[in-house]
């Protein structure tokens, strides 16, 4: 539906954020995905999160691979540079981009076909390197663009639209991200925007590898009885372990809560994650206990959502590489070229 140009008209009283940007400034082109697609809800949540965080849109770079999910960066943040790369390789392109300019916010958008199959390696390595990024997998368990084949995250025993059963074990992206050392791990659901927006905000405020597995039902091919990624199924089995509110640095804490109900996690940039506990025994700081909880719930057929793990003092790739605070793309000859005198010395040492 790209032939429909989005009207430039906007409501005169549209609310602006702290930097004067309206919601419209964070939008993109009209979506070409199917009506009711979970991915569009995620795009909308991203727009909402960036608006609420007062981010200048052009300071965000959005990168993706190939597939339905990877098309979505066209549909949000139209004033940001976007990069639709090759299948499963968004993580390497994002890593390179991040090395070149550490000052931008990197939003990696991928799907289960993109990240859990051909891209599993690059997903894993970008996480273990601690690239400062928000990595969102729009997870629907199915290949949409090629018409309904199972993806690697489809649960064993789940049924395709055509009636075939999936016999292969599912790749659990959340467990992988935890295992590989992602410092912010969350799972959201495209059908619960109120939960998803703060999860994205928390991930953006996080200065390390942030991963969000977002279950995003495919309205065309995976929203039927027998699917474990459909709207109804996820609603019935959703076990949210907490509710998150994100407060920006130096912002008054406005969330209304009873003492003891909420745990506050101050991240490195000063932002505060206020976590309202829903599951008593769930501790987002204890990675091993969290993984244990996730495995137990999975065995019981529950889908755990919320902030699953957070390390408020993460390392990132730049810290590990001991790089200069100035972005590399701002360095010129003076900072980069050792010059002819040094070369003369070098020559002299090689005679």
């Amino acid at each position: 539906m790209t032939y429909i140009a989005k009207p430039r008209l906007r409501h005169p009283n549209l609310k602006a954020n702290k930097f004067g940007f309206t919601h419209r400034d964070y939008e993109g082109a009209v979506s070409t995905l199917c009506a009711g697609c979970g991915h569009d809800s995620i795009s909308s949540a991203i727009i909402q999160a960036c608006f609420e965080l007062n981010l200048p849109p052009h300071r965000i770079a959005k990168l993706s691979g190939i597939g339905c999910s990877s098309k979505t960066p066209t549909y949000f943040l139209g004033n940001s540079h976007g990069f639709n790369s090759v299948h499963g390789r968004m993580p390497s392109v994002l890593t390179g981009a991040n090395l070149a300019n550490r000052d931008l916010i990197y939003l990696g958008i991928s799907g289960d076909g993109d990240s859990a199959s051909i891209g599993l390696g690059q997903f894993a390595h970008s996480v273990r390197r601690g690239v400062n990024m928000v990595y969102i997998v729009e997870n629907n368990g199915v290949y949409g663009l090629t018409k309904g084949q199972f993806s690697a995250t489809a649960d064993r025993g789940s049924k395709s639209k055509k009636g075939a059963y999936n016999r292969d074990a599912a790749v659990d992206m959340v467990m992988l991200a935890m295992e590989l050392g992602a410092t912010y791990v969350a799972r959201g659901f495209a059908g619960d925007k109120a939960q998803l927006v703060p999860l994205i905000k928390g991930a953006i405020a996080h200065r390390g590898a942030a991963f969000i597995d977002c279950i995003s039902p495919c309205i065309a091919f995976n929203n039927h009885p027998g699917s474990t990624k459909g709207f109804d199924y996820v609603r019935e089995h959703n076990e949210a372990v907490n509710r998150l509110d994100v407060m920006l640095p130096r912002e008054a804490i406005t969330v209304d809560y009873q003492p003891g109900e909420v745990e506050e996690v101050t991240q490195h940039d000063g932002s505060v994650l206020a976590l309202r506990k829903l599951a008593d025994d769930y501790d987002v700081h204890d990675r091993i206990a969290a993984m244990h909880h996730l495995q137990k719930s999975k065995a019981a057929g529950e889908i755990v959502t919320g902030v699953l793990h957070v390390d408020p003092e993460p390392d990132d790739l730049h810290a590990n590489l001991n790089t200069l605070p100035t972005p590399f793309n701002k360095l010129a000859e003076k900072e980069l070229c050792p010059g002819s005198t040094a070369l003369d010395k070098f020559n002299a040492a090689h005679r």
Partner: protein
Amino acid sequence: MSQPKVNDFVIKFANVNGSGSASANRLFAKSILRMGVPVSPRNIFPSNIQGLPTWYEVRVSEAGYLGARGGVDLMVAMNPQTWDRDLLSIEAGGYLFYDSTKALPASKFREDVNVIGVPLTELCNREYSDPRQRQLFRNMVYVGALGALLAIDLAEMEKLIREQFSSKDSLIAPNIQALHLGHAYAAENFECPIGLEVRRSDRVGKRIFIDGNSAAALGCVYGGATVAAWYPITPSSSLAEAFQQHCRNYRRDRETGKNRFAVIQAEDELASIGMVIGASWNGARAFTCTSGPGISLMQEFIGLAYFAEIPAVIFDVQRGGPSTGMPTRTQQSDLLTCAYASHGDTKHVMLFPEDPHECFEFAASAFDYAERLQTPVFVLSDLDIGMNDRLCEPLVWDDSRTYERGKVISHDELEAGAEFGRYLDVDGDGITYRTYPGTHSTRGAFFTRGTSKDRYARYSEAGPDYSDNMQRLLRKFDTCRLMLPKPVMRKARRSTSLGVVCYGSTSPAMNEALDCLEDEGLNLNAMRIRAFPFGDEVVDFISEHDRVFVVEQNRDAQLRFLLVNECALDPTKLISVLHYDGTPITARYIMQEISSDVAALKPKPKKKVAP
């Protein structure tokens, strides 16, 4: 041997991989250089860490011929595994140097080869008690003995030991002691010099002695690369490692200790090129280095960089292919896979350095070409120049040189209202303007993609949009031809209708062959191609000659294919001289191939008729 060979012979060391011989052998080669005599050493090594045979061949050539010669005048046979082969490779009248501690039967020698036995093990056992020292110093003992046998200045050797161990003082004295031990034994027991002799000369001049990978890596530092992403593969790994080392020396902030570079050892070649593309897209200069198998893996991304027009610098240090091929042997067999890398219609820029000097120069300028042209640029060197020390002109850098960052629109230009269409050919040269991400809050953002698009980077599957873009890419490729390094020409002493074309590391063997052929009365004009796409000079040269030999190190005549395919040249006049067994081509081989072709061309003399 009646006449001694002075400053013109080949010594080959047969060693066991991992025995610590490499640094001793290098010191030997360097000591000859320090006497002003050109040498060209070559490592011949297996894909192995310890135990398999390895050789180090040193060609000593007063005339300055740096190509492999073929044949051996003095074999230093330190490896019993390869004894028989090594013995056979010695030219008649040559020398065999061996460890005579243990007596060998007469059947192990050749009558037409002079034998020099030095009891290396016995000398070391007597001198050292530590078993590791006995092994390590044995190498220095034979270097000392060779010094005496060939009349190499002992003081130069001592000086080199002092330089080599300058950071490990304690090793200087025992090494010098070992050197003297061998030297004294040889001087006492043999008439020195033998029929091979190094005599002080002045033929080295200001030239430096360095391997191509290290020089290319330094070129990357000078060229402003800040991001390197790579995956280990022979023979390119030392390029990435050298870059890291050079950066530690030149790119660490004095005050803060922070790095102005990032080196990532990626999970594979796919991720390496992906990171390079991501970094280049974002305005940093980035490169990867690999060899043939890595190029195969990178194909998809290379197509993306071509089509989305993102700069990328890729070093391909070529080795023997196809598949895993001969990982530790040299070839020039990746031209076609690089020239047309990836599916669909693609063509890429390639540079062919001849030696470390050009590795440095081309590495630095590759970033200019890549950014000016907004496309991948391949630097195709090979194992022969990449991993071997080679005597070459000193590296040069003009301090007034600036980085040519290509057509990038700045914040101020956008603010002033500059029209921006990412794929809009404003200047008619096929090269369009780009913006770096994050430049301006409302202008200049665009979507980069591998799908077809219109001039404003909007997704489009419309035929005219697609063709328009593909045609522009061809115009851009035409622009490349004017920018890239021109071929180097060499005119024969006499006018001739014969020409010869070579590229890359074959150039020293080619030059030597041309000298020798001219001495024999066979004149050829020569052209060394340095870049693809070819400039007009290349076409003109071939048009001006009736018969043109194309010398290359692959089976399928890949450069010849490119010449025929890209320049519509008459294939019948392009005669291939191909050498692809993994060893570097020799002047002897080139001469033989060209001479026999030319001889066959000459009209056969008519039968003599009685007068």
